[in-house]
C-alpha cells in the first residue's frame, strides 16, 4: 500500500508531464452569478478600469523582485521626516550615491513592502562590505511568528531602514526600525570586519571591548567601519545546541558617539 508521499510524487510527475494548456474559466466569485449577471459585472469592471488604469500606471514604480521572484511594491513617496532628519545621506546624498531602483533587482529580504525608489543610496564601501545599498520601506515583517506570544504571523513594522549588500563577495544587511539606529545598535559584521550606521551629528565613534584596546573610527556619510578582534578561543554553542567553531569576532562592549567637537552625543536607548 502506497503512502501519501508516493501518491504525491506520482501526481507531481503526472503534472510535470502534462502540456500546460491555456485554460480560461470564470473567476470563482462570478461563477455564483447568472450568465447575464456575469456580463453586467464585467461591463461595470471594464468601465471602471478604463478610468482607473491611467491612475494605476502613474502609481506603479519600477519592478523590484525579492529572491523568490515575487514582486515587491515600490513608492515615490518620501521617507518620514524623522528618517530624513537623521540621515543626511538620504536627505542630501553626495554625488554618485543615488542609485537606480533597477539595482535592487533581486532583494535578499522577503516580506518588505513599499520601497522608496527615490531614496536608494550607495553607502561608502569598506572591507567585507564592498557594495551596500541603503533604502527605506513603508513596512515589513521582521522575524518569524512567535506562538508563545500568540502571534499567528510576524507583526508588520512600519518605516524600516534597510541596508543590503548586493555583491556576492560581501556580507551583511538588515531591515530594522528607526529605533535601532537612534539607540546606537545599528552594527553588522562579516567575519572580523564591522560596519555601522549612525545619525547626523556623529563625527567619530569609540568602540570599547572587554579584553582589547578601544578603537576610534571616523564617520563618513552616516557610516563607520572597523576591524574587529577575534573572540577568545573555545567552543561556542548556538541557541539550538549545535557547536559553532566560528570565526566569531569579539563584539564591542559599548559604542560611544562623539560630535565634531569631541563631545558625547547621547543615544536613545528607551525605544529599542
Amino acid at each position, binding site marked *: 500500500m502506497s503512502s501519501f508521499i508516493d501518491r504525491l510524487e506520482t501526481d507531481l*510527475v503526472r503534472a510535470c508531464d502534462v502540456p500546460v494548456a491555456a485554460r480560461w474559466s470564470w473567476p470563482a466569485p462570478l461563477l455564483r452569478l447568472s450568465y447575464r449577471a456575469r456580463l453586467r459585472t464585467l461591463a461595470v469592471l471594464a468601465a471602471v478600469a478604463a478610468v482607473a488604469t491611467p491612475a494605476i500606471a502613474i502609481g506603479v514604480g519600477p519592478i523590484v523582485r525579492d529572491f523568490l521572484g515575487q514582486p515587491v511594491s515600490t513608492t515615490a513617496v518620501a521617507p518620514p521626516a524623522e528618517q530624513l532628519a537623521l540621515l543626511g545621506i538620504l536627505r542630501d546624498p553626495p554625488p554618485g550615491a543615488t542609485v537606480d531602483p533597477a539595482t535592487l533587482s533581486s532583494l535578499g529580504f522577503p516580506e518588505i513592502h513599499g520601497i522608496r525608489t527615490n531614496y536608494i543610496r550607495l553607502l561608502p564601501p569598506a572591507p567585507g562590505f564592498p557594495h551596500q545599498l541603503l533604502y527605506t520601506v513603508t513596512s515589513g515583517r521582521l522575524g518569524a511568528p512567535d506562538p508563545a506570544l500568540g502571534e499567528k504571523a510576524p507583526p508588520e513594522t512600519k518605516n524600516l531602514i534597510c541596508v543590503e549588500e548586493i555583491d556576492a563577495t560581501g556580507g551583511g544587511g*538588515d531591515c530594522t526600525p528607526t529605533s535601532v539606529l537612534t539607540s546606537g545598535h545599528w552594527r553588522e559584521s562579516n567575519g572580523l570586519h564591522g560596519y555601522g550606521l549612525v545619525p547626523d551629528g556623529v563625527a567619530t565613534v569609540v568602540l570599547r571591548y572587554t579584553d582589547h584596546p578601544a578603537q576610534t573610527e571616523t564617520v563618513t556619510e552616516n557610516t563607520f567601519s572597523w576591524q574587529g578582534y577575534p573572540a577568545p578561543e573555545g567552543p561556542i554553542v548556538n541557541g539550538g545546541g549545535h557547536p*559553532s567553531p566560528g570565526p566569531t569576532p569579539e563584539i564591542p562592549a559599548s559604542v560611544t558617539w562623539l560630535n565634531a567637537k569631541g563631545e558625547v552625543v547621547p543615544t536613545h536607548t528607551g525605544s529599542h
Partner: protein
Amino acid sequence: MAHDDQELLRAARGGDAECYGTFFRAHHAVVLAFLARRVDEPEVAADLLAETFAALLAVVRDPRRDLPASPLGWLLVTARNLLIDRYRHGMVAETARRRFELAPVALDDRDIEIIVQSGQDEELLGRIYELLPVEQADALTARVIDELDYPVIARGSNTSEAVIRKRVSRALATLRAGLGN
C-alpha cells in the same frame, strides 16, 4: 547537491517529468521535517508539502522564470511563507495544486506516523549545514527552525543580537545567491 538539483529541474523543464519525481524524492523529507516541526496537525503539514512542491513545479513549467539557484533553499523559504499565509488566512493555499489538478491529500494512520516522525528528523539540519557556512547555518536554524528569540541565540553564541540578525539575513542572501552550491 544543489548542482544536481538544478540539472534535475532543467531536465524536468525540458520534458523529462521523471526528473521532477527524482527531485521530489531527494528533498521531500527535508521539507516535510521542516513543516512537521512547525505545525501540530499532520494534515496541514501534508497540504503545505504538496503546495510547496507544486509551487516549484509552476516555476519549472514556466520557461520565462529563472530556476532557483538554490532549489532546497527556495523550497524551505516558500514552505515558511506558505505557513505564514496559513496562519494569516486560516487555511493552506491551494493555488498551485489547483493549477495542476493535484488530488487532495488523504492521510491514513501510517501517513500520519510518517509525518510525526519526520518532525524529529535530523536530516534537515544536516542539509542546511551542507548549504551554508556554519555560523550562518547556526543562526538560521536557531531562529527559523528552533524559533528562538534573537537575544536567546545571541547569549548562547556569545555574540550580539545584531550580529545574529545579520547572520540570519546573510544566510537567506547566501541561499538566494546560490553560494551554497
